[in-house]
């Protein structure tokens, strides 16, 4: 009576909820978001219509990689602390890449050879 159940695992129960799993497995990587944000405006394509996404996929937050059902909900999301934290993070230095790892290990920049003459 009142003892700990041997089959229940608090850690598993805590981490099995929706937000934690989404944050861990489904979000875009930081470098992908960073690349999208630094793309010039001409190359940014309009969001494609997708019936499987809320709001036909038109109300999207790139920093947090989330879709919203309408403009009001998305604008409400822009006021949240988590979103502001993401904005600040994306305005900081560029995320870590394999090139950074290679340079830190003592390798030089990759040698892509001379530009080939076009046909």
């Amino acid at each position: 009576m009142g003892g700990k159940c041997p089959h229940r695992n608090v850690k598993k129960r805590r981490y099995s909820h929706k937000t934690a799993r989404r944050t861990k497995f489904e979000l875009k990587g930081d470098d992908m978001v960073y690349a999208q944000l630094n793309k010039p405006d001409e190359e940014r394509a309009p969001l494609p219509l997708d019936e499987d996404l809320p709001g036909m996929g038109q109300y999207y937050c790139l920093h947090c990689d989330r879709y919203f059902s309408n403009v009001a909900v998305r604008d409400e999301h822009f006021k949240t602390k988590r979103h502001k934290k993401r904005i600040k993070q994306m305005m900081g230095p560029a995320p870590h890449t394999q090139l950074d790892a290679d340079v830190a290990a003592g390798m030089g920049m990759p040698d892509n050879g001379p530009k080939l003459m076009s046909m």
Partner: protein
Amino acid sequence: MRLEKCWFCSSTIYPGHGIQFVRNDAKIFRFCRSKCHKNFKMKRNPRKVKWTKAYRRVHGKDMTQDSTFEFERKRNRPERYDRNLAENVLKAIPKIDKIRVSREERHHKNRMKGKKEKLLKEAVKELEQGISLVKAPSVLQQDPSLTLPKIKVKVSQQQSEENHAMEE
């Protein structure tokens, strides 16, 4: 048989070791150990973890700018094989490695230049602050409360008998 670098800690990954993660935008992340892979899955930033090469580079603890780094690089364009050139390169590799090691040692020595002075200053400060805790040996003799009393213990004489019994 290409040697790669770990995405997280920048160690060398030899063939048959480590694990590789290919993301669905075809970007490849290589890890030398389960330690690095777990840190990656926890979304840690290598520049903020102190045991990684990226951290040491950002904080100036390792040499970052040197001409010997240019010899080791990823070459994405194959060269035509030249026997003389290959022999010269193989001969030059240990020499370049020796130069790099000596330069890294010099960098470390320069980084540690002010350390002895700093330690001396800290010792002086500690002495000034804690001088009241030190007592002279003559004071210990005069004041018996600072010294534990000597206790005499009698030793039993049974040991000699036991030794005698052992000899038999």
